[in-house]
């Protein structure tokens, strides 16, 4: 029998297995965190799993997003993940949602599931999940990664604190795994711990990581648990006002010049103004006609490294003489 090895555990048993089968989990973001979480939750027999991701598989995902292989590059993550997980467990329902989470759809989707597992990689969506979970009355299992470190917690669980209680103010410095680099195992470990917290919540077993923040450093091998103080005003604010959008847009100080942003579309802070052209480093060669070649263009990325490569490549190979690298990256261009 499929679930024999976990039913033997006293925290599961036949009744626990029934609880798992009757439960539903929405995984928002099926990437470095969401892939391992989804694999273990599907294996464990969660009755209905929603896989929400609007992104497509890229070759640079494969070292950590373990559901995908080389044949999947270019295909929608939600669909590929559903197909693979259905092979792991054909007895559960898996719903692929090829959409981004938005202020408009978040509550509607969250109402259809018992809990939300956060596999996202940006502050906007984490605050959005937080607010929509407060409104829909659902717990969510949070994780974040920065290089070799991770944070893990359960929010909005049985009156416990929310993400806004931990971080009432966010930062513009959203640095994704794509930008900083990450070993595949780091989101892998965090994603599995998220699956573990999810199973504990559904089974009513052990100590759920609510009101606590677990910090993991895979290099030093040290873990720490910090106690999170609930801030009722942060929760009440959302109940009264609804979802408060967090936008990490910013303005460029010197608006009189022309800029070329060679970062990927998901990188933050975002700068949206008419004098900024957005072409990711990898697409420059295909979109040369969009780059002005007369007036001076200031080329930037997150830190100044990719933009330096872009300037060198465009000068050497395509003869652009009007490009200047912004040393130090975007932070030197924006206010604050």
């Amino acid at each position: 029998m499929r679930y024999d090895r976990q039913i033997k555990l006293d925290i599961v048993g036949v009744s626990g297995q029934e609880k798992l089968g009757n439960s539903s989990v929405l995984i928002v973001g099926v990437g470095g965190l969401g892939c391992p979480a989804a694999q273990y939750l599907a294996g464990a027999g969660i009755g209905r799993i929603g896989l929400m991701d609007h992104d497509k598989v890229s070759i640079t995902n494969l070292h950590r997003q373990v559901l995908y292989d080389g044949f999947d590059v270019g295909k929608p993550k939600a669909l590929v993940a559903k197909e693979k997980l259905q092979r792991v467990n054909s007895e559960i329902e898996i719903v692929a949602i090829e959409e981004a989470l938005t202020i408009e759809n978040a509550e509607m989707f969250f109402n259809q599931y018992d809990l939300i597992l956060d596999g996202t990689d940006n502050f906007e969506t984490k605050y959005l999940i937080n607010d929509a979970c407060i409104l829909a009355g659902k717990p969510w299992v949070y994780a974040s990664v920065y290089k070799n470190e991770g944070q893990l917690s359960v929010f909005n669980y049985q009156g416990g604190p929310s993400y806004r209680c931990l971080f009432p103010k966010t930062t513009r410095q959203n640095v994704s795994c794509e930008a900083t680099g990450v070993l595949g195992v780091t989101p892998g470990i965090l994603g599995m711990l998220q699956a573990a917290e999810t199973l504990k919540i559904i089974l009513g077993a052990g100590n759920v990581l609510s009101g606590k923040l677990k910090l993991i450093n895979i290099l030093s091998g040290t873990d720490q648990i910090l106690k999170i103080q609930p801030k009722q005003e942060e929760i009440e604010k959302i109940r009264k006002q609804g979802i408060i959008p967090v936008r990490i847009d910013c303005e460029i100080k010197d608006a009189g010049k022309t800029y070329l942003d060679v970062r990927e579309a998901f990188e933050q802070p975002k700068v949206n103004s008419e004098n900024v052209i957005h072409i990711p480093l990898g697409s420059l060669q295909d979109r040369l006609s969009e780059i002005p070649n007369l007036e001076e263009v200031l080329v930037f990325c997150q830190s100044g490294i990719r933009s330096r490569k872009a300037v060198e490549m465009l000068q050497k190979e395509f003869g652009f003489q009007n490009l200047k690298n912004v040393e130090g990256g975007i932070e030197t261009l924006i206010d604050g």
Partner: protein
Amino acid sequence: MKVTIKYFGMLAEAAGKDEETLEVKGGLSATELKDQQIRKYQISDPESVQLAVNQDLNSEIELKEGDEVAFLPPFAGG
């Protein structure tokens, strides 16, 4: 009095270390210690940095000898 600071995420990079023990004047609050270190290491977006004194995320605390203060930044990778 001596207090130990632990830096996480990009704060450890800004400080060039993930832990240090400092001699500080008695009666210093956790928030004052934060302001002092933020200036020292030129940490950006200081209002997003959260403090935990002896593993408790609460910065409205006067520090005592031997306290451990964690400097915690938000991050969002995944």
